[in-house]
């Protein structure tokens, strides 16, 4: 288990992440406002006294958010303590309706977990220090400029109160590539749990802490002394919103810091803002010294005692385990297993199909044919989830020799997706039914009678003649005959 330490001459890179994920609950964390945002929704049209911070409003905790947090804890193999509480983080900012954020402080809902990642074949455990629940602030628009130059701020509280889970990792990353692998894996796991949607704008926000240390302070397993880390410079990089951006932003930072060191410049402990459009990090105006958040327990929210929920709540089989099981139980190769577990819904669909047919047949149909056609049409497996029966019927028709593979793949499946019709309807309409055996026997005789020269050529030993005759029979049958059996029948007739 070696760490992919990025060597910058004498330096190694140490990175830790703070990841905020929006939860896919129906309502906000402390009130009954919906979390569903239409693209064209009006600002400040999805609020209530609670999430707007009106005087007199009180928070009430959403049970769905707690369940989601417990599922996340379970998936990350984290501990859930006996008691967990909410605190106020007090600071002033226009996106905070109450000018404090409800979050968790010294008693978070999840502690000490881990997530395994794999980078270029190497596996590593990334330690998860904690995960906790908190509320999302509102959204700001800087009118007439950027955050530095705007003349006014426009505020929309529709997003305020959306449930967030903040996941904090140990400083275990040794390269930007590792952070990307981690975030991609984390997103996959969270989607499998049904608590997260990567396609939702702003659903993932990442802050990274990155330090440069002497290469010889890091041993071959990637371990490093706490005291060394404490003494090292630390740069916080904010405004990262995808796993790809994480790798880009941090790779840029590593370069920037490496160059600074080469030129003899000291590295500051500072906060930098990732500018996606320019591909650089920018130093944020140095704020007041270490903010004083004056944390204290939120008296309006009674504590949670949900340690036993970990046993009571079920989580689905996670992607890695499922992939391994597909290889072991279905005898699939790892590439097929990967394709078939790309999402939980694909995996579920595949297994439903595999219940009825040979797994390899099922795998070919789902991984190669179906996913390809869906992809081409920008469709998802969830679009046809209700049509599992039709899809199975299609496979059955092929397995029973009632439909050729070619017709099934190229005509019927595509029409099923494009027109929404079921296999039988399409087959009738297109006249694709395999001709019955008698009809084919007749076509064979006819072809022989109509093509005496070809017959003579066959008897003279010309293979091409047989193919010609097969083609004739195929034409007569409108393409619905099986070429293999036609070949067989012709030989029998001709050799007789």
């Amino acid at each position, binding site marked *: 288990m070696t760490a992919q330490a990025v060597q910058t001459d004498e330096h190694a890179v140490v990175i830790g992440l703070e990841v905020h994920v929006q939860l896919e609950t129906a309502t906000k964390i402390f009130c009954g406002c919906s979390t569903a945002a239409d693209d064209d929704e009006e600002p400040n049209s999805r609020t209530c006294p609670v999430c707007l*911070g009106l005087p*007199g409003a*009180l928070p009430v905790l959403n049970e769905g958010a707690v369940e989601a947090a417990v599922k996340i804890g379970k998936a990350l193999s984290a501990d859930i303590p006996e008691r967990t509480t909410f605190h106020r983080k007090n600071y002033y900012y226009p996106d905070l309706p109450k000018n404090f954020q409800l979050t968790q402080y010294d008693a978070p809902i999840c502690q000490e977990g881990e997530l395994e990642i794999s980078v270029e074949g190497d596996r590593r455990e990334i330690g998860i220090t904690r995960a906790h629940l908190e509320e999302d602030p509102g959204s700001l628009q800087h009118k007439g400029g950027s955050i530095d130059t705007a003349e006014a701020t426009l505020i929309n509280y529709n997003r305020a109160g959306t449930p967030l889970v903040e996941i904090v990792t140990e400083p275990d990353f040794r390269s930007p590539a590792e952070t990307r692998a981690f975030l991609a894996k984390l997103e996959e796991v969270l989607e499998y749990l049904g608590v997260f949607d990567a396609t939702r704008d702003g659903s993932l926000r990442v802050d990274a802490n990155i330090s440069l240390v002497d290469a010889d302070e890091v041993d071959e397993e990637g371990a490093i002394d706490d005291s060394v880390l404490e003494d090292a410079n630390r740069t916080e990089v904010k405004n990262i919103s995808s796993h790809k951006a994480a790798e880009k932003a941090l790779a840029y930072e590593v370069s920037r810091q490496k160059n600074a060191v080469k030129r003899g410049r000291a590295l500051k402990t500072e906060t930098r803002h990732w500018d996606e459009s320019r591909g650089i990090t920018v130093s944020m105006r140095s704020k007041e010294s270490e903010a004083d958040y004056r944390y204290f327990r939120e008296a309006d929210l009674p504590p949670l005692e949900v340690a036993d929920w970990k046993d009571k709540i079920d989580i689905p089989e996670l992607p890695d385990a499922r992939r391994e099981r597909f290889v072991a139980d279905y005898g699939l190769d790892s590439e097929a297993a990967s394709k078939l577990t790309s999402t939980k819904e694909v995996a579920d669909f595949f297994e439903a199909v595999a219940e009825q047919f040979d797994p390899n047949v099922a795998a070919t149909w789902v991984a190669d044919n179906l996913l390809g056609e869906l992809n081409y049409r920008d469709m998802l497996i969830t679009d046809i989830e209700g049509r599992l029966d039709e899809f199975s019927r299609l496979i059955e028709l092929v397995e029973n020799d009632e439909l050729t593979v070619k017709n099934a793949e190229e005509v019927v499946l595509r029409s099923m997706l494009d027109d929404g019709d079921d296999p039988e309807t399409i087959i009738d309409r297109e006249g694709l039914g395999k001709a019955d055996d008698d009809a084919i026997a007749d076509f064979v005789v006819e072809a022989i009678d109509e093509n005496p020269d070809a017959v003579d050529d066959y008897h003279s030993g010309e293979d091409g003649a047989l193919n010609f005759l097969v083609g004739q029979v195929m034409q007569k049958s409108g393409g619905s005959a099986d070429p293999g059996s036609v070949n067989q029948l012709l030989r029998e007739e001709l050799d007789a």
Partner: protein
Amino acid sequence: MSSDHTDAGDDAHNAFITEATIEGDDDGPLAGRTIAIKDNMSTDGVRTTCGSAMLDEYVPPYNATVVDRVLEAGATMVGKANMDEFAMGGTTETSAFGATENPAAPDRVPGGSSGGSAAAVAAGAADLALGSDTGGSVRNPASFCGVVGIKPTYGLVSRYGIVAYANSLEQVGPLANTVEDAALLLDVISGPDPNDATTNDGGADSGYAAAADGDVEGLTVGVITDLIEGADDDVVETFQASLDDLEAQGAEITEVSLDSLEHAVQAYYVIAMSEASSNLARFDGVRYGPDTDAEGNWNEQFAAVREAGFGPEVKRRILLGTYALSAGYHDKYYKKAQDARAWVKQDFDDAFEDVDVLASPTMPVVPPKLGESLDDPLQLYLMDANTVPVNLANLPAISVPAGDVDGLPVGCQLIGPKFSEETIIRAASAVED
């Protein structure tokens, strides 16, 4: 539902900030009764100022749960009652809308912070009133105005819609001219509320009005000696008379001492100010609040709005609360205050193993003259010594008129274990003549 929006000044004692009528339902236990609502309780469509310039024009788009309940019970609201600014005070003199005069004692304060509520009831401008009690703000004005006021067990009544001052300490409480009426109002407002996660089942299916039957045979009453020591002699004498009265009706009077009370006022103020500094952070002029001509960026405008909108007492408490929570001082002040609070709770719990109720004068003094109290904030805080321990311990207490000293009202405070509202109501009804 009509809403007559007029400024305070029409009523003789300045008990109201806004006189407005909201008709209640046709029938219910409060049908035909009028009620004054303290101006820190949200009333949909009716200005709610909390006695502050900060909310001079604020009109809530929703009702507090207790407002819904009293209207559904048939009461008609006649106005929003005057109060100390954001409930911070004991005389109603910090209101941005002028002081309220005590109807039972001319030229004297009505007490606070629910001074307008108590005065409205004492003057007959309303049959009933709702106040809020964070450190005595229902019991203090009840005592000074010669009416009845109840502070329920924490969590008995919903705080949804009540503008928060110190959320771990406060409760909405009824004020009325008789114990039975106060108890009836408590029946209406109490009970769990899904919009307030700190409410409990204590008040569900209550029968408080029926408990005002005066039957105190065998009731054991412990007089808290620590709270007698700091009180004026005249007040103690009047209070003693009500104890004799109870004894004559079959109650057994003993003495109790609670060591923790020595630190109660400090603990109360540190906790209350800390919570207040956070609860009042939302007043920044964005979603509500006065407009400002101030120039500058966000921080500068916030600071200007808050400087202009808050009075000196509110500023004082916000600053002290911020200080008590800040890095380096949190353990010294806030954490120690929580320890003191736990100690007070335990002390009361232990005492209730030996007695049914505890008693003390509600206030250590008679109502001071208007204008006399505001020079020394610390002196004002010390006046709360008899009432704050009850809030720290989350317990129920009632103030019932005990008599007067040269016409100046004196109140008797009876405290019970949690959820013992019926017991203290019963005992108070026996004190009442």
